[in-house]
């Protein structure tokens, strides 16, 4: 793995010589622009991309409560969005025949706090949050389960290491249980934030805008020319050329970031998971009462990836008796394509079949060839095998934890229908990398006057729901640094001071998260059983064991999950990491 990374890094670095100027490759748009030049407007920060990450960054930059200075100086920012500006949240929620959009994110409590009280309140009140205060994770070929509950975060909240979201929502004083997170649709999230941004005059919201070229200072110019040249952005908007300049350009324009490619100083490490995710919104069966979903996030690990069933639209006053859930099913591309080709009813029955199962017994640790052998050694091995597997099952069924309530396995509710289009997308691991040239850093999250945030800098497997949360961490750190710079009267991109701190912080966190999720992917990819195939309906029966080292890894993982589930401090530490709490012992 490390060798691959190295190769990627060097190859991309050679390509990523310091670029002075690059123009849009997209000539069709360029031809539509006539050459009317608008006066060169200067901003402190220009955010390219008005999606979830970009708009939250803009919101944090404008939030006077963020950052520690009493001496608040004026800030001027621009938000560039290629698409038309999103409708207001009221327009979205007033549509009565709508259903939850499958493009949704799982946001941790820390990320939700970055939305600010008013945005969060409007999302909750308009029933656009899928709050979950418990989470059940289990596997397909073993008994092991992990149960996280909101109470696991109580300690962190009391210690002040994690934000208490209930203080953001005056209305929900009765809801005292801490949230593990909430699922928010992309469209509702962006609309709610734009609603707030529209009221602020320190920000220029430029929609329908196409970046044509970016002129950023080279590494050599930094520190030699005083003050260092600004970053100049030429855009096309309504057939007009718009020229902007900024102290700092932030690329929040997604995984295929145009800014990143255009500036070109950002070598990326990419690695395909060989997996594709299928996502849609389903309606949940409420014939047995509507407690089935009950603010729980379910995730079952299959050998090729997990199926997640996440609650959506449950934060309102429950006037609607229909209950929806968001499905994210990661699997191999061939199986994903098979799922995408299914009719909605076939998809629902396949989903129910693979999700509503468990807990099982671990597959045999001995390969099938051993069973025909009748030597005494085989008999002893079989007894030990049986003992180990039974013990692990007993550990699960006993559900011994220090928690006041025993967390039994809960069967996820069955789905009755698909209410949205079924979407598929490929999963890739990517992260920016950096190297050192003559003792100076090249690449990473920043280059002179340019910073990457969110998917522009990293993408990962959705199994831990950390993709957007990592991006939210990026924008939180960056907004604090920008404010620190502005409040101290400095040019945030003019020195390495702030951007290096941003890079150092995010490189550590980013690689940690991406690496952690990747190792989860690898660990859960090991299975002691022959992978069941979605495409072949004949194979939906018994689990066949392969035994050997794979079986041993699968068994250890299973046992490990059980032990983590039983040991409170370990389980709480995991829940805190996922919630984005400050680790114990840090200031």
């Amino acid at each position: 793995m490390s060798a691959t990374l190295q190769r990627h890094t060097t190859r991309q670095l050679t390509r990523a010589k310091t670029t002075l100027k690059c123009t849009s490759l997209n000539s069709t748009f360029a031809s539509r622009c006539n050459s009317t030049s608008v006066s060169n407007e200067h901003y402190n920060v220009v955010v390219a991309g008005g999606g979830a990450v970009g708009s939250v960054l803009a919101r944090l930059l404008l939030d006077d409560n963020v950052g520690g200075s009493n001496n608040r100086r004026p800030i001027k920012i621009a938000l560039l969005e290629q698409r038309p500006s999103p409708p207001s949240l009221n327009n979205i929620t007033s549509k009565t025949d709508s259903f939850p959009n499958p493009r949704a994110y799982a946001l941790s409590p820390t990320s939700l706090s970055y939305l600010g009280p008013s945005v969060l309140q409007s999302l909750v009140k308009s029933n656009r949050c899928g709050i979950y205060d418990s989470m059940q994770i289990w596997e397909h070929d073993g008994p092991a389960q992990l149960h996280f509950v909101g109470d696991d975060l109580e300690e962190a909240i009391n210690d002040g290491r994690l934000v208490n979201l209930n203080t953001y929502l005056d209305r929900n004083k009765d809801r005292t249980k801490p949230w593990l997170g909430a699922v928010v649709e992309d469209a509702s999230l962006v609309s709610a934030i734009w609603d707030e941004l529209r009221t602020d005059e320190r920000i220029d919201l430029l929609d329908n805008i196409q970046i044509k070229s970016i002129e950023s200072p080279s590494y050599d110019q930094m520190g030699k020319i005083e003050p260092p040249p600004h970053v100049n952005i030429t855009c096309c908007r309504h057939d007009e050329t718009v020229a902007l300049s900024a102290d700092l350009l932030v690329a929040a324009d997604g995984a295929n970031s145009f800014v990143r490619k255009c500036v070109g100083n950002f070598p990326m490490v990419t690695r395909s998971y060989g997996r594709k995710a299928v996502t849609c919104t389903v309606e949940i069966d409420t014939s047995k009462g509507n407690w089935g979903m009950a603010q729980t996030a379910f995730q079952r690990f299959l050998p090729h990836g997990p199926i997640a069933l996440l609650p959506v639209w449950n934060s309102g006053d429950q006037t609607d008796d229909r209950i929806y859930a968001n499905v994210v099913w990661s699997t191999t591309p061939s199986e994903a394509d098979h799922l995408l080709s299914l009719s909605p009813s076939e998809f629902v029955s396949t989903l129910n079949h693979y999700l509503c199962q468990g807990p099982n017994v671990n597959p045999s640790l001995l390969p099938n060839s051993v069973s025909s052998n009748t030597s005494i050694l085989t008999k002893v091995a079989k007894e030990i095998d049986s003992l180990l597997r039974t013990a692990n099952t007993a550990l699960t069924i006993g559900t011994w934890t220090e928690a006041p309530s025993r967390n039994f396995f809960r069967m996820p509710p069955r789905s009755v229908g698909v209410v949205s289009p079924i979407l598929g997308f490929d999963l890739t691991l990517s992260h920016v990398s950096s190297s050192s040239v003559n003792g100076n850093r090249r690449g990473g999250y920043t280059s002179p006057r340019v910073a990457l945030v969110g998917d522009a800098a990293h993408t990962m497997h959705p199994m831990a729901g950390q993709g957007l949360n990592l991006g939210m961490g990026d924008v939180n750190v960056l907004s604090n640094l920008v404010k620190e710079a502005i409040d101290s009267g400095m040019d945030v991109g003019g020195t390495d001071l702030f951007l290096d701190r941003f890079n150092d912080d995010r490189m550590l966190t980013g690689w940690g998260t991406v690496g952690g999720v990747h190792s989860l992917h690898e660990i859960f990819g090991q299975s002691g059983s022959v992978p069941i195939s979605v495409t072949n309906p004949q194979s939906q029966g018994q689990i066949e064991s392969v035994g050997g080292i794979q079986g041993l890894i699968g068994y250890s993982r299973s046992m490990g999950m059980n032990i983590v589930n039983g040991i409170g401090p370990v389980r709480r530490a995991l829940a805190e990491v996922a919630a984005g709490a400050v680790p114990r012992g840090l200031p």
Partner: protein
Amino acid sequence: MASRCTSYAGFCRRLLPSHPCLSSNPTRTHRPAIYGTTHHENARHKHTSRCARHHKRSFSSAPFYGEPAPPSSRYNQNTSSHIPPLSPLQRITTLIHSSITALNDPTRADAVAAVGEVTGSYALANMRNQMQNDAVGKRILQERPVVDEQIAKRAFELLNRHNQQIGNTSDATSNNPITFAAAYATFLQTHNFDPEERSPIRFIPNPELAYVMTRYRQCHDYFHVLTGLPPTVLGELALKWLELMQTGLPLAALSATGGSLRLDEKEREILWNVYFPWAVRVGREMRSGGLMCVYYEEEMETDLEVLRGRIGVEPAPFVDGV
């Protein structure tokens, strides 16, 4: 009716010379107590021969854990109203000693019971809390009903009445609902069990928790009736998984784990493919602790099917050829 061990032969307690366990009666047949905390089994020939082997190993020569020591005055049964608490060291040594004893000789119900008592305090406290939060469970804790000869007598009366009713009806094949008591009496009769033979509590100082443990042991036969599981190794193991889900007692887990070693391959397959999914399904559908919060003594005349439906117990699947 065969006898069964009721006292604990640890280093802190010794069997009386007159105790049936020491009488070298080779014909006694014990059900390995690890499969259930009550009575013996005489239904299965294979099983009996296994027990006989154990019996020989334990008593033909001195067992490796030593000769039974004289009973300590600390655990005199006459003063069982007050049980002194165990220190952590005593608890651990008792656990190790009784586990070795029980593993060596599964017929030793007293040792199995001791393991259950010294490991179960956390689960018992949970069970008590569940019962206190339940109206019926609370009443059981207050009134403390016990299973004794009276109950059995009543059950047999009800069984007789039931049989008379069947005799009165001309059509013998008509669907005649059986009451819980009649089913219980049939169970006792078929397997020749005595409802009163149970190990006394020796290591749980809290009287309320001690009662919960007693109640759990006594209700074990009721669970057999409700689930329809026979007291065979396989049946006991299936019931143990359900009990583990319901009570969370580590003893149930230990029995289920250790007991599975006594199954052959075919039985194991049946256990995992039929009985285990059944136990998980039933345990999940039922609310936690549901089995313990039923006043079985008051349900004697209730229809078995009605009672099953109310508690949420689905009868165990019947597997042919076992």
